[in-house]
């Protein structure tokens, strides 16, 4: 009984990641299990983890944000477009981040005030935002970006890739906010029991709107890193990212019903996805098969968690 389901949820995922790493390390000790490859994996996972951290705030309130990939795509385009038009890097970044937060706020207002279920609300905005991106870019990639912009996704700071630094910063902030602040407690409480939270004097709409805004902000940062990594802003660059973000959060043990979850879990969930992609590529497994394996691993992990939960509850 001392091993509660919280324990399984929390630490099972660590063993999962360790198991996958061990497997690839045995299969490919010379390529996979090297320091440079781990930095590469971290770089590859950084965009997904940025999006996943925002997604986690939303899922903790028992919501879901399907628009994170679409926002990332639009933000990349707007930031790139602004920089190309004005030549001003910071103006571009500010415009991108502003757009990201704005669409996050719109999601939040639709969910909190119009009371549209989060799945439908963000499915609709995902579609609309994808369209806006295509209209804005006329379907063409934006390039000729200055090298100062490339730094965000490609540069190093003291030998550490800047995108990893951004991811680490986001992780530390998310952890502090969720674990140490009054606001973080409110996020968990609203997801756990919205009626009891209201009766305890928590401003529900404030919490709901803000988690979508946070998701928008982190999607924006992710979108900028993505455009910078590619060196161009592809109009459809963000598509599909929402699924990897949700997968990372769920793999990390956050409950889709809200109220339960651990920031470290989300990071590990993101790494599981990245390690799988990286390891299978090294092993020369075709990307078609990779998708199948990824799906099965997610299914297996979630099944193990719920099995473990049942087992320990008996």
């Amino acid at each position, binding site marked *: 009984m001392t091993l509660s389901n919280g324990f399984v949820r929390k630490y099972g995922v660590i063993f999962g990641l360790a198991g996958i790493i061990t497997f690839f390390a045995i299969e490919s000790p010379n390529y996979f299990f090297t320091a440079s490859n781990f930095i590469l994996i971290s770089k590859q996972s950084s965009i997904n983890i940025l999006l996943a951290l925002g997604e986690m705030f939303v899922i903790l309130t028992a919501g879901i944000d399907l628009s994170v990939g679409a926002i990332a795509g639009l933000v990349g385009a707007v930031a790139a477009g602004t920089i190309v038009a004005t030549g001003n890097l910071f103006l571009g970044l500010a415009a991108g981040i502003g757009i990201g937060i704005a669409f996050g706020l719109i999601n939040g207002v639709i969910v909190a005030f119009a009371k549209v279920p989060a799945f439908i609300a963000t499915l609709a905005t995902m579609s609309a935002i994808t369209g806006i991106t295509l209209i804005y870019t006329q379907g063409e990639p934006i390039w000729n970006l200055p090298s100062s912009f490339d730094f965000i996704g490609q540069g190093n700071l003291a030998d550490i890739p800047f995108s990893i630094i951004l991811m680490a910063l986001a992780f530390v902030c998310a952890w502090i906010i969720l674990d140490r602040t*009054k606001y973080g407690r409110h996020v968990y*409480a609203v997801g*756990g029991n919205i009626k*009891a*939270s*209201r*009766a*305890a004097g928590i401003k529900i709409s404030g919490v709901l709107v803000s988690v979508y805004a946070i998701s928008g902000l982190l999607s924006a940062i992710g979108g900028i890193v993505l455009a910078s990594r590619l060196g161009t802003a592809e109009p459809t660059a963000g598509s599909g990212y929402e699924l990897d973000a949700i997968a990372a959060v769920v793999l990390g043990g956050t409950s889709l019903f809200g109220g339960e979850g651990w920031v470290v879990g989300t990071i590990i969930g993101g790494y599981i996805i990245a390690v799988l992609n990286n390891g299978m590529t090294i092993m020369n497994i075709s990307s078609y098969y990779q998708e199948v394996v990824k799906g099965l691993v997610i299914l297996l992990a979630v099944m193990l968690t719920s099995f473990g939960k049942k087992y320990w509850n008996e």
Partner: protein
Amino acid sequence: MDILKIDNIKKSFSGVNVLKGINLSIKSGELHAIVGENGAGKSTLMKIIAGELEPDAGKIYLNGKEVQFHSPLDAINSGIALIHQEFSLIPQLTVYENIFLGREISKKFLGINFVDKKKMKREAEDVLKTFGIENIPVDSKIRDLSVANKQLTEIAKALSINSKILIMDEPTAALTLRETEKLFSILANLKSNGVTIIFISHRLEEIFQIADSVTILRNGELIDTKKINEVSIEEIVSMMIGKSMNNRFPPKPVKKIEDKDEFFEIKNLSSDAFKGINFSLRKGEILGIAGLVGCGNTQLAESIYGLRKFTGEIYLEGKKMNISKPTDAIEHGIFLVPEDRHDLGLVLQLSVKENHSLPNLDLFSKVGFVASTIEKKSVRDTIAYLNTKISSINQRVDNLSGGNQQKIVLGKWLVRSPKILILDEPTRGIDVGAKFEIYRFMYEQSSKGVSIILISSELTEVLNLSDRILVMSEGRITGELNPRNATQEDILKLAVKGKES
């Protein structure tokens, strides 16, 4: 003749012995009550009889023959049905669809089986009629029924499969007095039809009203089985808690309530659930608001706390208050301990500490950051004061017993030095020991000058604890009583006033 015999049943969960060798005989056609504090093993025993759990050791004999149930279906096929507190009905389906769920009657058309709605409706009506259950249209949706009618549907569902033994887990917990009376007359009817009923209840008074015999469990052991006319309520209570408790209520404190003290006033409060409510509450007073379920007292409590819309005026210490959301009440020291703690009182996934802190984070945090030492001290102090039994302040509250959960809900408001506590059914689903402690807590707080509005459907509770009693019926206050010279009948008369006409 014994229809059911239980021989040395044992059950443990993760090394904890929940049932330590139970021997019990149930006579055919009797109404047998099972009582015991929370955690005594009542529910576990019932689940074993109904095949939901398998015992570690021991035997069950049905009509003298040994039976082994591996699933609820085995028990149902042997004529044993368990009716839970939480119903197993599907709200979107109709009464008759629920009654025949999983064994729909079909007719063949063009070689294909189609459900025979007409026949199902007719048979459902027959079942209801046979057992004197009236006024439930068989094609109304379950979600549109009252709690009482849902329960009767559940009973009808069990009876329609020829159950010989009906096990009911706290069937009256959510019923009004009148609905309880109706249920009891239906149970009497079932008995005369030869159905054996096993009945779990926390309300000892009603056991004396309907049971033939009573079995007392304590800590997984069977203490005694008695004929109901051979035992008194005090004897049952002392067997339940293992020590003699002459009084279920702590001694009343001596306190002086100033008559003219206009502390809290409600003027002409109205909403869709109540009309023209006027009353005043004095400092340190315990004001009981009694009434049948649905009389509007819960809605009144929730309105004063800012959870519902209403019209009218509320004055605290002579000043008019503007209450439109819970925060408004909280700021003025008015707190609600809700009727349903799982729904409004607790976040079940969160820990004892987090639940305690939820409305108090403003006191425990500095520039938005939670100050862990202040928080932990507050939790520990409150836990100690209320004698809450927990294994750790990081324990999830859904693992706690009802009494300890309620103490968490009460305790979180103590931090904010309450002026007025609104307690809505504060002892519902709580064992005798914890009830006593909550009563004592109420006396202590009111002696300190905290005013308490007590809403309770347990009349003994209202009569014993209150300094003054208001009775509501159909959303209106129908009378005021002085508990020193009022009886349960007096309350009941006022509680049904306006209902008959």
